[in-house]
């Protein structure tokens, strides 16, 4: 490879690299992603379970995960959506970044084998099991305004849940970034219009999120603002904190793309 000399040569080299990365990110990587976990798949051995709790409809939970632990989120009834934000425990200015998550993975659709990135180019959580593959990174959770518009009065909502949970760990409104919502089948048409595909929700859908750094997570169990089943879309969810198997060399998340290999490398350095 020759060293680019002129500004134009540098531009052209950068464009070629971008096109190669795009082709790999949008063609090779999706083909290599694992199949969805079956609804009866990935049982957790009882001795690996650390805690188990139910979160009532409309409420929230704060969960601390150590690097290497995992959180299973179960939509028992198939009618719930769970919005999540999270911070690195040692430095809460580092937090989930939905924009980098979609940009780096070349996709606004996440499923088994994908990751959630922090704003510091590191992996927060790996999606090691996922029965659903229908999650939202673009629209966000419910708010006082979205519930007022839908029901005529403000009901419990994700924005206020995040605020209350953040306050209890010394954080505030400034610390609340855009969120990811699991079991929220938001898709869009060619004009960018969002719509909800209720058929993609099933009772018992779950995800396993493996922590790649020490984390504080907040999970809000409130119906997604686009959910056509509101206000009936309100049921408890189950959270199971457990010890994940250490990732092997062929771990689908860690090997999903050159970008993500680098993100793990940068994450591992924190703990090297």
């Amino acid at each position: 490879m020759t060293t680019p000399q002129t500004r134009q040569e540098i531009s052209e080299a950068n464009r070629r690299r971008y096109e190669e990365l795009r082709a790999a990110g949008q063609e090779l990587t999706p083909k290599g992603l694992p199949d969805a976990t079956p609804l009866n798949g990935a049982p957790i051995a009882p001795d690996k379970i650390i805690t188990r709790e139910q979160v009532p409809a409309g409420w929230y939970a704060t969960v601390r995960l150590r690097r290497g632990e995992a959180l299973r989120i179960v939509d028992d009834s198939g009618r719930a959506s769970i919005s999540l934000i999270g911070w690195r425990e040692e430095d809460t200015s580092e937090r989930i970044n939905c924009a980098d998550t979609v940009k780096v993975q070349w996709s606004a659709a996440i499923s088994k084998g994908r990751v959630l990135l922090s704003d510091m180019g590191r992996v927060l959580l790996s999606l090691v099991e996922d029965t659903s593959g229908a999650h939202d990174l673009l629209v966000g959770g419910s708010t006082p305004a979205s519930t007022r518009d839908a029901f005529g009065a403000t009901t419990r909502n994700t924005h206020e849940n995040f605020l209350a949970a953040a306050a209890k760990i010394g954080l505030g409104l400034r610390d609340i970034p855009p969120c990811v919502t699991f079991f929220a089948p938001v898709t869009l048409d060619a004009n960018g219009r969002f719509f909800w595909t209720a058929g993609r929700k099933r009772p018992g859908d779950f995800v396993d999120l493996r922590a790649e750094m020490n984390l504080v997570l907040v999970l809000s169990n409130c119906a997604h603002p686009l959910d056509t089943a509101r206000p009936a879309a309100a049921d408890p969810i189950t959270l199971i904190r457990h010890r994940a198997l250490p990732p092997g060399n062929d771990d689908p998340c860690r090997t999903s793309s050159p970008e993500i290999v680098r993100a793990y490398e940068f994450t591992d350095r924190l703990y090297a």
Partner: protein
Amino acid sequence: MATPLSIPDVSDAVYCHDIPAERPWSRILRQRQTLRIVDSEGQQAVDALLYCADDPAERYSSQDTLRVQGSAYVELGTRLISNKGRVMARVTADSCGRHDTSAGCCSCESNAVRFGEATKYQHACRENFILELSKHGLTKRDIVANLNFFMNVPIDPSGAFTVVDGISAPGNYVDVTADMDVLFVISNCPQVNNPCNGFNPTPIRVMIWDPPEMQRAGRADIQSQSSVPL
């Protein structure tokens, strides 16, 4: 406010400034003032954040904006919504057609992940935002998913997400009219690793107009303000 403003006369602007390539800028935009961002040379992404001037904990929220709008792109008529659900500003003119608010800003750290570790040592929008926000007592904590004017990021129904070549031509502009007093912060994007700037960052122009009834007859004094060196 629903009626679009008439196209303002350039000579009535109360403020006009060229932001050099790769540099940040910020200014308070008063309620009902209009900010025009001109992509002077074309294909230049402009990253922007808005904060409520009276309480900067209230700031622009991409997810609230998209939820309220029901669609994924920022365009003429888009209301820019805060994290408290209030309208901060709206897009009142647009000669370009489509802008992004899902792709965030570039950072040294995300560049290193996307394009290799060597690109960690290239200037990035987040460096601009951190430095510009520090003038207002704000920090990295205050940086949220921003607006990307003139940046073309189509999202496929499958979810595929691509930053493609900018579609703005030289002189294309977007007007944003404030519904409240806002701190408007811009990073003139320095990214050279993807097509958002046509691989060649260039200067942009910002102009501000008072509400039509406040505009003086005849030419207003144009204040110019050079940006503070890094």
